[in-house]
């Protein structure tokens, strides 16, 4: 496959679910994913990630817009596309009473060419579980099996919809390794997630989704750099601080030269800075002068999460909790 060709090319994608009122799940998405790239689709629940990926997978018809996958068209070359893509859906409950090997062999039988089932299981480190019933697998093992089923047809393009949601950190890391090794075979991966850290570690480029639109697109490094400040300082104001004092403190914070951006949500303050050292020095000076006692102070490198906060004024985790 040509290195410069587009694995996915979609333009002005819209999807409206009929209802009262109609739900506009996707509102004008343009995406170009290059061959050999790992592309992350990031965003909170309900941002339109799954709807978008299911349209690209040919499982949902778009309301309008054009989609080309591997330089083919869903309306005319559906079977060809399906031979060359691998899909892992967000939640699929496989048959509990089939073994891992049987299930893999079953999915392999759908494809003209592909890996040997044992090879696919080896790639996801499930070889020793191949005779186990699916209902005996842990959550992480089930997700790895889902990935095995997606790659058993040796696809050029792999779609993974939230493959690590609900997994513990070590299972998550194991799955990342699997995805990385798949990419080494010069394959394209499109992955949706609401873990910013996952996108940062795994993806070449990331599209951040919010409310059915792409609000940012680029490499994780570019996106973080776009904040203009790579350090984040967060702290909590005392709850009994009078509103007037709070107001003037906010203004003074915005005036500090070392601080790039100041976001206040209730008692918690989120500040970005290019240089954490001088930012902290100025911050403590101001707090000392105002005699304000802060708590839970943290400083860290900026992440995609901060990009999201910066763009939307909301935390990803708020949406997760809801």
């Amino acid at each position: 496959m040509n290195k410069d060709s587009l694995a996915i090319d979609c333009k002005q994608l819209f999807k409206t679910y009929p209802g009262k009122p109609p739900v506009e799940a996707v509102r004008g998405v343009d995406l170009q994913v290059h061959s050999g790239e790992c592309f992350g689709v990031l965003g909170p629940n309900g941002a339109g990630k799954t709807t978008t990926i299911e349209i690209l997978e040919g499982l949902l018809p778009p309301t309008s817009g054009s989609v080309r996958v591997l330089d083919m068209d869903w309306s005319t070359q559906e079977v060809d596309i399906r031979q060359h893509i691998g899909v892992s859906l967000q939640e699929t409950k496989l048959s509990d009473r089939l073994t891992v090997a049987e299930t893999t062999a079953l999915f392999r039988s759908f494809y003209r060419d592909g890996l040997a089932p044992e090879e696919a299981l080896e790639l996801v480190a499930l070889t020793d579980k191949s005779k186990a019933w699916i209902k005996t697998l842990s959550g992480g093992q089930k997700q790895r099996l889902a990935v095995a089923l997606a790659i058993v047809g040796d696809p050029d393009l792999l779609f993974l919809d939230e493959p690590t949601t609900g997994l513990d950190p070590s299972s998550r890391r194991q799955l990342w390794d699997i995805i990385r090794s798949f990419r080494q075979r010069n394959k394209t991966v499109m992955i949706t997630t609401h873990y910013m850290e996952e996108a940062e570690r795994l993806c070449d480029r990331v599209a951040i989704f919010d409310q059915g639109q792409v609000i940012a697109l680029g490499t994780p490094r570019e996106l973080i750099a776009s904040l203009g400040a790579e350090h984040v300082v967060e702290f909590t104001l005392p709850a009994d601080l009078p509103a007037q004092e709070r107001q003037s403190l906010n203004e003074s914070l915005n005036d500090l030269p070392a601080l790039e951006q100041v976001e206040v949500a209730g008692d918690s303050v989120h500040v970005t800075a290019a240089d954490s050292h001088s930012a902290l020095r100025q911050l403590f000076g101001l707090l000392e002068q105002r005699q304000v006692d802060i708590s839970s102070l943290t400083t860290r490198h900026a992440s995609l999460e901060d990009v999201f906060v910066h763009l939307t004024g909301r935390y990803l985790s708020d949406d997760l909790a809801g």
Partner: protein
Amino acid sequence: MARLREFYRQPEAIFWVYFFPILLVVALGVAFRNKPVERFTVDVQLAPRSSEIVAALGADSRVQVQAYDLAACQQRLRTGKSDLYVVPGADLHSVEYVLDPTRPGSVVAKNLADQRIQEAAGRIDPVQVTIQQYNEPGSRYIDFLVPGLLGMGLMGGGLWGVGFAVVDMRIRKLLKRFLATPMKKSHFLMGAMASRLVFMVPEIILLVVFSWLFFDVRVYGSWFALFILVLLGAVEFSGIGLLVASRARTLESVSGLMNLVMLPMWTLSGVFFSYDRFPEVVQPVIRLLPLTPLIDALRKVMLEGATLGMLGPELLIMSAWTAVCFGLALKIFRWTD
């Protein structure tokens, strides 16, 4: 197709599938069994001539006879231990029967006892009567019932088996996952039907063998014809099951639809009694239902020894249902949830 059959190979709770029809055969077979000859208990009040009457009645093997005093006779009649009691008269030419005419056993016992006592007194019947018992295998109710139950089993097995499995897979988004592969849709649907056959054929064999062993229900036609009919019936009803399940999103809605499909056929298609009992005008409609030709054909093969060549219309109707249901299901099938 074979690979999808493998997919279905789940040791599900097959208990009901296999044992329910057999339980039904046992229950109905016992209820409608040919009863042994009935016996009656007749008491005779102790009197000078009672022993002659006891001897007269005792000559009949169907009568259990014993002499008691008056109080005991009354007590035994009242509590249902005896069917009637006889009070001997002063001579052999008068006798009194005490009985409750609302008890059927009492009336029959009185007729029997009267016959014996009259004969003992010298009556000679002017007409000689012999009775031939008619109880040929093949003509009993159980013989009529078993083909009906086979048909019912095929209907239930096909509809529930295919319908539930498909809707369950739709709920688990497994259908959607399959849709995301290059799998041929018609292969999947055929696989769903084929896997059902694997379950249903043994079920039917079990039922036939069981009713043959325990109720002596015989197959007068060829086993091959029976096998073909069972196969066609299973395919027909799994096709209908597929159609019923082709849109449903929940197990509740699919089971409602299935009852809607099955209930009319349970009553109309002649499972338990012949559909000849329904009015003339509705009979052409009944004959076109999916279950009727199957049961009719099964009865013709099992009871009348018909060959497949004689079952043209039945086979035609069943094949038509199969083709229409499968085609329609393929067209309107909902893969995503």
